[in-house]
């Protein structure tokens, strides 16, 4: 109990330190930080999660043997897109600095997503064959030709 009370008290102190520090730091625009905090929270909880749940629901319609692989692939594709999309959009490029965002990120992101899709397809085929082989071997010997 003492550990938990210490963690809660320490955490409250750190949060108070963060708020106090942000309010007294001349480099921080508290309104801007608050706005961004609210925007990412609402954006995640309303827009992002609604999309994730819709995709998850759609994936329940695929055959069960592939569902697991497809869901893992969807997680990977979503995460890679979150990281790669700001690069692919290229708003950070600089006219006088070619070393900033020097790669063709749109093409690369598509290539990575295709690689994920290809691996997923391969895994589904392998799993399908393994299932078929298992069913074949489980059949009684007299049924076999």
């Amino acid at each position, binding site marked *: 109990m003492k550990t938990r009370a210490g963690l809660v008290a320490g955490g409250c102190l750190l*949060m108070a330190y963060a708020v106090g520090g942000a309010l007294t730091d001349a480099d921080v625009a508290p309104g801007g930080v608050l706005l961004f905090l609210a925007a990412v929270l609402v954006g995640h909880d309303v827009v992002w999660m609604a999309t994730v749940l819709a995709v998850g629901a759609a994936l329940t319609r695929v055959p069960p043997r592939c569902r697991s692989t497809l869901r893992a*692939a969807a997680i990977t594709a979503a995460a890679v897109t979150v990281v790669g999309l700001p690069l692919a959009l290229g708003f950070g490029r600089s006219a006088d600095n070619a070393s900033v965002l020097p790669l063709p990120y749109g093409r690369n992101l598509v290539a990575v997503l295709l690689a994920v899709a290809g691996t997923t397809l391969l895994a589904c085929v392998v799993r399908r064959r393994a299932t078929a082989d298992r069913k074949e071997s489980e059949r009684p010997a007299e049924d076999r030709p």
Partner: protein
Amino acid sequence: MVRHPDTPVTGRAAVLRRLARWCLTPLPAPPVALRRGPLRPGRFRSRLRSTRLASQLGVALGVAFGICFATGLLSHLIQHPPGWFWWPARPVGLYRFTQGLHVATGLASVPLLGAKLWSVYPRLFSWPPARSIAHAAERASTGLLVAAALFLLVSGVLNISRWYAPMPFFFTAGHYWVAWLAVGGLLVHIGVHLPAVRAALARPMAPEPRQDGLDRRALLGGVAAASGLITLTTVGQTIRPLAGLAVLAPRHPDVGPQGLPVNRTAAGAGVRAAALDPAYRLWVTGPVRSVSLDLAALYRLPQYRADLPIACVEGWSAVGTWTGVRLGDLVALVGADPRRSTALVESLQVGGRYRACTVPPEYVGDPLTLVALRLGGEPLHIDHGYPARLIAPNRPGVLQTKWISRITVAGTP
């Protein structure tokens, strides 16, 4: 001895007890008619969500955020050192490692945070929304933690993509203070949920059945694969042998003038004309005398070579072969002892957060700390700091001042 069960409590303890009772007093239940949409029971049907899954993801995320916080705080302290802080000049690549780890861990946390928030999403709609004042406060702190965690990862991704328009604040300061908020929220969260996490992480007696076509281990495997893929496609911006795989890295360690990336160009810093002025002179002011050196005079001083990385706060790094004058030699030239002197190195820039830096004695006296004139055997490209720049071991790139115009030495003869 048996203690009396009704020992009277007075003073501070009584106040605290009354406060605790008030915080835990059940609040009146809201009208059931308000329980609509996702607030209705049974709206979230995936049986994959469990306390065990949320706990496992939480532990992994806690470790990742702990690494990010420690390395980020270290970077902040190196750039804004308080009196008690000391950062060594060796090992040469330590900052390169810690900041590369900071960014790589942050990127690898993206799928972890996504999965963790998915695993607890139905709790956002728990009913009643607040059972007591204490419950409401706990939920508010969890909301702050979630917002802070999202803030850190989203702003971090935007920063390495150099896309600042969506962030209505100065990234460095906002990221720093929200990191404290996230760590505070994390400690509160752990304190509140520790018993549940401990119970959930105790190994189950029976194997878990597959549910909804995806079991917990497969989900964790998917998250690990996503983290691994993100790392593999980005970490080459600092780990040179993996540069070929770094197709989503914001920088490539070989791309830039003289084969090295640049963060701020001469044009961007507004120093192009001053840097190319043939009348350029480097002023060195010390406790005994001052000297003014043109480029030819700098080249006549003993030249040394150092293979040192530029390690950016944005997580990329690349090694260059630098040649120039030892900062210690310039400090000695104005009558100070390099091992006991601090140097203020100023750029030709007239403004900007990073136009000057302070070099502490352990760096001034280090033989690898150079006022570099050449990179890869050629005069510095103007975007790398021509005519002269600071290059020192184990320092963030923002403290490797370019286009040096003045060095002011504070020290003893």
